[in-house]
């Protein structure tokens, strides 16, 4: 005997076959008993479109740009998420808020353009951690397939959460896909 690493190792049985075993029929019947047991056992298939596998609580999927309670965008285009991003998937352009846009943007500066390349993104969640404004979250959904590379570059319109004032139902639904932990 050599070194034993686990206690599960079984020595190979090299005894010559008994008469019953050499007939094969008995062993085949034993095998058939095994398969018929599986025939009646519970099936493991998840019937996909009707039935979906639930996401884990810490799942990191498609990004969502958050709004505050009055439906104003929280993002101030500070660029911390872009700096934190190891895949360099995020790019943005800042703009200054005009006096009549106070109901649209929370602070004086906002992101005029905000793009995430989903082909580059590795869904690490560092942008979410870097954000000081509670603006970006990774939701429990994932990027659907697309025919073009262009389609994977998500614009601000694709990322923004629905407005809680105009579309409260959609907002609630989208909020459900975000895991919300109290940030300290």
């Amino acid at each position, binding site marked *: 005997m050599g070194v034993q690493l686990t206690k599960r190792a079984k020595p190979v049985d090299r005894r010559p076959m008994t008469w019953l075993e050499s007939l094969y029929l008995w062993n*085949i019947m034993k095998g058939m008993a095994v398969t*018929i047991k*599986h025939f009646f056992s519970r099936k*493991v*298939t998840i019937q996909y479109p009707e039935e979906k596998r639930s996401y884990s609580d810490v799942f990191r999927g498609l990004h969502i740009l958050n709004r505050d309670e009055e439906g104003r965008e929280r993002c101030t285009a500070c660029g911390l998420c872009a700096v934190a991003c190891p895949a360099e998937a995020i790019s943005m352009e800042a703009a200054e808020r005009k006096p009549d846009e106070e109901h649209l943007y929370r602070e004086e500066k906002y992101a005029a353009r905000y793009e995430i390349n989903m082909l580059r993104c590795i869904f690490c969640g560092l942008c979410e951690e870097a954000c000081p404004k509670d603006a970006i979250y990774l939701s429990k959904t994932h990027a659907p397939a697309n025919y073009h590379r262009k389609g994977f570059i998500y614009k601000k319109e694709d990322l923004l959460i629905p407005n809680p004032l105009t579309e409260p139902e959609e907002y609630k639904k989208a909020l459900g896909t975000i895991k919300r932990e109290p940030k300290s």
Partner: protein
Amino acid sequence: MYILAIDWLFIIEKLILIALIVTLCMIVAMYATYGERKVAAYIQDRYGPNRAGPLGILQPLADGGKLFFKEEVVPLASSKILFVLGPMLAMVTALITSAVIPWGTALSIGKNTIPLQVADINIGVLYIFAVVSVGVYGIMIGAWASNNKFSLISGVRAASQMVSYELALGLSLIAVLMVSGTMQMSEIVSLQQQHGWNVLYQPFGFLIFFICAMAECNRTPFDLPEAENELNMGYHQEYSSMKLGFYLFAEYINMFMSGILMATLFWGGYDIPFVDETKLAAGIGQNWVAFLSFSMLMIKACFSVFLFMWIRWTIPRFRFDQLMHLGWKRLVPLALLNMLITAAVVLWLNK
């Protein structure tokens, strides 16, 4: 009235019967493919096809439609006529076995009684032997005509396997013939109705017959002619579209027919167990009994088909030398022994 001394009613009756039986075989073969996939799936803890129609019941139609619309490729270097003849022969030989099978008790329409059997010939079992041995040509011709090495090897394998197992098959059947004393299929069934099923007298013969039938149908564990990992696809490598479909269909029809044969020769045919058909006919009418007996035969055959599938998804394929070893060194001597013992017992009882 007779024209040219031909009983036209008789011919029409037989033609209708033939059409019905061929249709039945096709439908059964179609749903055998569905059943195969379902059984495989259930044994592997899956659901199998369940999207086309309720429970996936339309899946065979979708598969058939797909096969019809596929491109029909005939390889440049193939022998064109033989290439077409191969699947045709496979299909025809699979279907013509059904001619001598008694499918149920006779129907009575008006004053006529119509037996549910196309040809009640007195050499029924011999006819089946003949058809089964022609069955190998479909595969051989197709494999040869494809001009592909894998196909050729597969054809050679199929030929040697089928010839080897035909021997033991025949020998196990001879024992049945000795017990029943006739080769007429209807006669064999009615004898079983009177004296109990042949499987009671010939359990061993049935086992040999079953194994050989599995080998004749090229089913796992005897599916060496289409061993994917050795021969790609075997004899239907070069086939596409409905020609491939015919080969696959022929396999399932063969399976169904051997199930029917096993039921007829060993499991009492259309006999409903523990029920006297003539008494039942007085009660509920001749045609209902015919229907019930036919259903009984179908149930028996379908169980055999299920058994084939069950075995297929349980055990792996034999190696070729193991196959030959089993065929020639085990089954043939055992079948011979079975035959001799049966002969001795029959002689002793008839003394």
